[in-house]
């Protein structure tokens, strides 16, 4: 299947910490973004294609000074970066916590070593000890080799923050790898995958480059599917002014499997609860890849689209669909980046997660559920890293663990959790987060999934688990692609709202929202 060794699963539920294999993942990193995409993101674009064969570009002129200037700029802008470069004691507590280290054995994938790639340059140029005693403190000059190391290993970090849970000082390697990528973006080493996607959002409105017309078509197709399935016309509205809810969801929900089943679930929930809602073709993307490249400005520019859409469509609430990274940026940063949202209904938090909506409705007895519809499955749940360690649901700490499980248990009869040290805030990343969900990083993705696969194997063997539910578009895409390497089947991955969709018994015959083009037809049945 692959020209590298796919890790073997033991079924023991945990993974032995491997002995280090220096250089096992050394390489050139993912494809480099070409100047056009850099320009769209306001990064320097004055660099040329290199002479030799292959995809490589040259660095920008005077790259060394520019890199150091950016590093200096960032450490004055982000306390996290400055602090985390200073205070690591090299205790080693984080060394065995990264799924990429466990799966690849490359010591540079140990969180502390990953930080050190930047730290050794920081020391050399910005600290007394590093300037005068570089050998003693492990400081090195900034060379092209170091830049390549940054590019390679900062794209072997999914910014999942598992290491930050276990570090005694909360040192968050994600902050360092984001800074690393931001510096690289400023010297002509942007990653093609991320920067191309962001430029699509700026141009078209979503990561997939799906224009409004195509989106409308897709949604109409979904309406037909649901009607054929249930006999009820559940609306999938787009750009409908005056709806109560603006739904922002990762664009994978519009067509990828199993994501789209989740989208059908949201639509059914809104329909059944009688909540009018709409998608926006202008802000048709929930995920914010600006975070992956550590660029506050690009992240803000993407977030502002959501604000504009909410104002234009005159909605009262903003709800996010199932996506881990989208939810972290939404929950933690949306208010910061694009707030204040005082034009929305203050009764609801801004933004809300779709699970908060659904769980609220279930608690209020607003949804009729037939759990037996999911009786063909024994479920387990994968806590997405960004939801688990960077967000919340509800108003109590840890709600992000409870809400999805509560909803799953409300719609399924069989649920089992994976081993305790692989769930909740100790959850393992799927292996494809943080802007690594690209085919040029397939080996990394397969190996990085090992710890999660091991836990899944354990509950499969011990408890007969047949399906794993997830609430992140990246997790779903990554798992469907990667689990066959470990002997599972693609369709064992499901959306949580897919399960809701299966169990939800539709009582409401007619949507509260009439189709704009056939209003008369629905007029009499509007309010029941």
């Amino acid at each position: 299947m692959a020209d590298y060794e796919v890790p073997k699963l033991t079924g023991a539920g945990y993974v032995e910490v491997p002995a280090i294999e220096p250089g096992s993942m050394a390489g050139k990193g993912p494809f480099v973004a070409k100047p056009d995409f850099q320009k769209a993101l306001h990064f320097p674009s004055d660099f040329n294609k290199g002479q030799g064969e292959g995809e490589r570009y040259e660095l920008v002129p005077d790259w060394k000074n520019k890199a150091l200037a950016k590093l200096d700029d960032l450490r004055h802008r982000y306390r996290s970066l400055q602090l985390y470069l200073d205070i690591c004691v090299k205790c080693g507590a984080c060394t065995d916590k990264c799924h990429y280290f466990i799966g690849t054995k490359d010591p540079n994938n140990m969180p502390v070593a990953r930080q050190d790639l930047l730290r050794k340059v920081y020391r050399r140029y910005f600290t007394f000890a590093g300037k005068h005693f570089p050998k003693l403190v492990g400081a090195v000059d900034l060379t092209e080799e170091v830049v390549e190391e940054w590019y390679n290993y900062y794209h072997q970090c999914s910014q999942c923050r598992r290491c930050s849970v276990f570090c005694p000082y909360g040192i968050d390697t994600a902050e360092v790898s984001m800074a690393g990528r931001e510096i690289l973006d400023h010297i002509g080493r942007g990653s093609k995958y991320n920067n191309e996607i962001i430029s699509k959002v700026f141009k078209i409105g979503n990561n997939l480059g799906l224009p409004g017309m195509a989106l409308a078509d897709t949604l109409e197709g979904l309406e037909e599917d649901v009607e054929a399935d249930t006999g009820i016309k559940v609306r999938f509205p787009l750009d409908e002014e005056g709806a109560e809810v603006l739904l922002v969801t990762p664009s994978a929900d519009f067509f990828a499997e199993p994501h789209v089943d989740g989208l059908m679930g949201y639509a059914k929930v809104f329909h059944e609860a009688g909540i009018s809602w709409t998608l926006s073709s202008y802000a048709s993307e929930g995920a914010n890849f600006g975070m992956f490249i550590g660029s506050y400005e690009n992240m803000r520019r993407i977030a502002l689209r959501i604000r504009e859409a909410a104002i234009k469509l005159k909605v009262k609430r903003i709800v996010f669909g199932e996506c881990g990274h989208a939810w972290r940026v939404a929950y933690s940063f949306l208010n910061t980046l694009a707030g204040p949202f005082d034009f929305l209904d203050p009764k609801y938090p801004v933004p809300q997660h779709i699970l908060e909506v659904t769980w609220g409705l279930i608690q209020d007895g607003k949804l009729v559920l037939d759990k037996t519809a999911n009786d063909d499955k024994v479920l387990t749940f994968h806590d997405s890293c960004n939801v688990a360690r960077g967000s919340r649901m509800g108003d109590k700490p840890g709600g992000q663990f409870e809400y999805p499980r509560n909803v799953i248990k409300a719609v399924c009869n069989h649920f089992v959790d994976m081993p305790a040290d692989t769930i909740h805030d100790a959850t393992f990343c799927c292996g494809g987060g943080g802007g690594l969900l690209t085919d040029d990083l397939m080996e990394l993705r397969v190996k990085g999934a090992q710890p999660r696969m091991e836990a899944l194997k354990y509950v499969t063997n011990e408890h007969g688990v047949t399906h794993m539910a997830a609430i992140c578009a990246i997790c779903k895409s990554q798992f469907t692609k990667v689990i066959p390497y470990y002997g599972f089947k693609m369709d064992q991955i499901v959306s949580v709202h897919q399960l809701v969709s299966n169990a939800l018994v539709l009582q409401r015959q007619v949507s509260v929202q009439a189709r704009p083009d056939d209003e008369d037809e629905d007029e009499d049945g509007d309010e029941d």
Partner: protein
Amino acid sequence: MTFVSLLYGLLFYFATFILIGGVARKIHQYWTTPAPLKIPTTPAPVTQKGVVWRMFREVVFFESLFRSNKTIWLFAFLFHMALWLVLLRHSRYFVETGFFLNFIQPFGKYASFAMVLGLAGLWIRRVIVDRVRYISSPSDHLMLALLMGIALSGMMMTFVAHTDIMQVKAFFRGLMFFDWHNLPASPLLLVHLLLVAILMIIFPISKLLHAPGVFFSPTRNQVDNPREKRHVAPWALELEKHNKIYLDEVKHG
């Protein structure tokens, strides 16, 4: 006034100046550098009080370390707690002893064994665990050597070759009140004090900054309330004020 006493007097003035000035500078830097985004590692407390409690558990019990690695936790905890006791015991060289300080003396005395044990454990780990060996630089070993040297020379004076501690006290009180006294001419004491002075001097330029630094860690000290309260850094507000997206747009008008 002996020459050595004069030298050590000046050395300690210098070391104290570097320690206090250097750490103050660093704290000032951490304090004034903005944290533009809310990044607490969740589940995080939703109130300020909760944050204080979280921090307390981190600083006193090393909670996260306990979760991640019991061996490191054991040795680190032993070392740090013993260090506190020993430091408390040493305060008798600077202030008048009262009931509490007298009470603590024996604990502080025997804590030194725990301190050495903790240091030895951490050091051995650094050598035998391949992952930790990989991330260690010479300075990490030197730091352990320095602390070990301080602990062992101190223990020698406590348990083997006593020094005139009244004289030591007179020396340090003298430094505090600019009324200089001689140090006892004991080589062990001089070694001990020299190592302590070196530790004080390198403190603000080394990883020892973790001690004040931990309190500034945004993943641990932020309240988890981004939906309720808007959190914006000054430089980000500047962008908003000028209705710009990119920082270079602001700089150039």
